[in-house]
């Protein structure tokens, strides 16, 4: 079927695919941003144990963590307009890109809320009591003691989430969104050099993931300065890392 393998096509395709990187990054950026807002709102009822809302957010989280992202994309793209039609709102003309962003935002929101919950509850209870014992208010305790430490704890989880989201956006092509993967399909069809397009595509995803990974690693080290004591040997520090209470809570099996 396809033509003989030719490495030069790989280098030829890379810039052509990169021209659509902005769409991929737009989906990642805006859905993560929205996901952070959604995730915070969803995490609150669980952190503060609000009776009914807690159940609602649990159902939301279970649904978006427990179903494949591809199905979520289809449900939102095909299902949402139908539902909204019942109440006479017509969104069939809204660009597909917005549906895609919404789907990824809702999906990320579920993981963000779990990340927030895990990070906040990983801050040791004793420090919260210590803050109360010196007379700090709830707000002061949260902003001065819990938040800075929860933030540091959440960075590795957040890094996984962003990289996972980046890779998941490749599925947007199934709805006809012209991002990098979508473009690779058309390039492949036009030139009949499919393998080369996929090599080029994976190289790009790989490099971006690497850059993100390094960035998050740097951030993590910065936020954990207080743990990397000069007096300690690196072995001791590494041991501390492993026993970090949330290490078992990273995302695990996820599509993409």
């Amino acid at each position, binding site marked *: 079927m396809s033509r003989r393998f030719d490495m030069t096509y790989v280098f030829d395709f890379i810039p052509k695919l990169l021209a659509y990187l902005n769409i991929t990054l737009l989906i990642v950026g805006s859905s993560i941003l929205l996901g952070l807002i959604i995730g915070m709102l969803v995490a609150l009822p669980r952190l503060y144990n609000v009776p009914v809302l807690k159940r609602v957010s649990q159902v939301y989280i279970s649904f978006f963590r427990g179903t494949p992202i591809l199905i979520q994309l289809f449900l939102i793209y095909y299902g949402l307009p139908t539902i909204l039609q019942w109440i006479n709102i017509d969104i069939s003309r809204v660009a597909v890109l917005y549906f895609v962003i919404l789907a990824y935002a809702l999906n990320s929101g579920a993981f963000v809320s779990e990340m927030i919950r895990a990070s906040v509850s990983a801050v040791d209870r004793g420090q919260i009591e210590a*803050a109360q014992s*010196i007379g700090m208010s709830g707000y002061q305790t949260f902003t001065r003691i819990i938040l800075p430490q929860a933030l540091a704890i959440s960075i590795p989880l957040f890094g996984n989430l962003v990289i996972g989201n980046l890779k998941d956006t490749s599925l947007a092509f199934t709805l006809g969104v012209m991002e990098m993967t979508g473009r690779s399909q058309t390039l492949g069809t036009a030139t009949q050099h499919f393998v080369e397009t996929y090599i080029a595509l994976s190289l790009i995803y790989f490099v971006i993931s690497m850059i993100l990974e390094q960035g998050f690693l740097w951030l993590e080290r910065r936020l954990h300065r207080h743990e990397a004591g000069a007096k300690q040997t690196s072995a001791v520090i590494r041991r501390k890392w492993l026993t970090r209470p949330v290490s078992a809570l990273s995302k695990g099996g996820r599509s993409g």
Partner: protein
Amino acid sequence: MIQLEQISKSFGKQEVLQSIDLQVKKGEVVVILGPSGSGKTTLLRCINYLEKPDAGQITIGDLKVDTKHPTKKEIHALRQQTAMVFQQYNLFKHKTALENVMEGLTIVRKMPKDKARTISIQVLEKVGLGNKLDHYPVQLSGGQQQRVGIARALALNPEVILFDEPTSALDPELVGEVLSVIRKIAKEGITMIVVTHEMDFARDVANHVVFMDGGLVVEEGTPEEIFQRPKEERTRQFLSRITPQATYSI
């Protein structure tokens, strides 16, 4: 003066504190002894409302709090009048020794930073950590961390400092340095309530000893009365079991 009246507390069906009365005069060091599960830590934690008492009244100086229906303001006031030293130190891990001590002064007391820094350095020097100001908790030994914990409480200059088994989590060879710091500040006339298992220390530093068991004050008195001439059988039993000679007998 600190006065606890009829403090009661239950966890579920278990009555942990049964109408406890306790009086602590200004400058007095009160040591609370008792087997684990006797309610002594819970009593301590009721004083600064880390644990909510079911009933009773707490008076610290001019502040009188009905613990059943306290306002937020009253809880805040209770915590402002007291400070606590925890068994597990509970230092703020993302802050240096100096920042740990300054936090209460700048954030709660709204003290200007340079004034808070001066006070904090003084206090840290007092506990022998003048050379560890910029160390984070992980860089300090258990004994040093607990001394920062003591400095954090001391800097606030509270009406009373509550010590919750301050040496129980420490390696045996680090216990001494912490006890000697507590001894030193006790001599300065700071009011303290100490829950401890260190009998020699209790005998040495206490003005008043309270023995608790099963959520009740079984007996109280001067260290001499309690250690030399305990009236109650339960106190005698406890003391004979916890003193070192008996620890190793079969």
